[in-house]
């Protein structure tokens, strides 16, 4: 009797641990948003905005990537350790590109005195 009770409680615990199935509308809204953002980035790329072109291109790509990660890859439902691990790759990448840019953007050409 008691063994049966513990079995059923284990079963309910297991069911709880399985994250709930994402509603269909969530996925469809995200897809619509991704395609709208794609159109937006293609459209703004054709307008002359100077530096803002780069900012918009990169910003829109970041938003698209975050939508995919959060909803399609279920990161909002993931536990902390998984979230931290998935953030790591992007953090290392930011360090790689950031430090490389620190170098190249702050270099000043110093001509040698005998030239």
């Amino acid at each position, binding site marked *: 009797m008691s063994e049966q009770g513990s079995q059923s409680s284990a079963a309910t615990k297991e069911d709880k*641990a399985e994250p709930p199935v*994402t509603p*269909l509308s969530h996925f469809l809204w995200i897809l619509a948003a991704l395609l709208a953002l794609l159109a937006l980035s293609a459209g703004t790329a054709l307008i002359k*905005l100077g530096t803002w072109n780069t900012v918009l291109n990169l910003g829109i790509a970041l938003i698209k990537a975050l939508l995919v990660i959060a909803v399609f*890859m279920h990161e909002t439902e993931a536990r902390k350790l998984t979230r931290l691990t998935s953030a790591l790759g992007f953090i290392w990448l930011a360090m790689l590109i950031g430090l490389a840019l620190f170098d190249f953007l702050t270099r000043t050409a110093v001509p040698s005195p005998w030239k």
Partner: protein
Amino acid sequence: MNAELLSSEAPAVEEQFDDPTQQREAATLGMWLFLATEILFFGVLFASYTVCRVLYSEGFAEASRRTDMLLGSIETAVLLVSSSLIALGVRAVRMNERRLAALLFAGTSALGISFLVMHGFEYHHEYEEHLIPGIDFAQSGANAHAIELFFCLYYFITGFHSLHVFIGVVIIGVLAVRVARGAFGPRHHTTLELAALYWHLVDIVWIFVYPAIYLIGRAG
């Protein structure tokens, strides 16, 4: 019959795990570790791209205008749709709709193939335009060197990305067949989740390739 039994039951728990939840979470964690190495694999190419673009911004803008923006945009849309299809496919398996799930996985794989075909057309077009450094590169003008650098990075980034798409197409195609045969079910779908994670990452890489390769220097 045997397959029916398989799909309705939870997967066997390996001895190092306490329960199916822990087993599933460990698998997801491992996949994300692999994806972190993939992010850095492409990250090195993106870092080189960033540095070269800072150094040769005009040349990169001129080179980007030589790429096919329309095909690039269609390819982006195809990958975004395929990502949602595979997400819906995993959802269908979890809701025990096996036929629908198999169709969604097959659709994802088919969209991946169409992506590769479109990219093939792009490469062919660039070959005709003499834009392949080392094989057939004949450009002149002040920015010729920068254009050569841009197209080197273009082939490395899109080439490795296409390789990843090809691997995904094969894996997801095989999984579509296994889903149709009933190898997965509401409580046995970790393999599908991991394949979907891989495919989404391939999609994310392309989300950044698209503006970097196709969209610079388009205005004016």
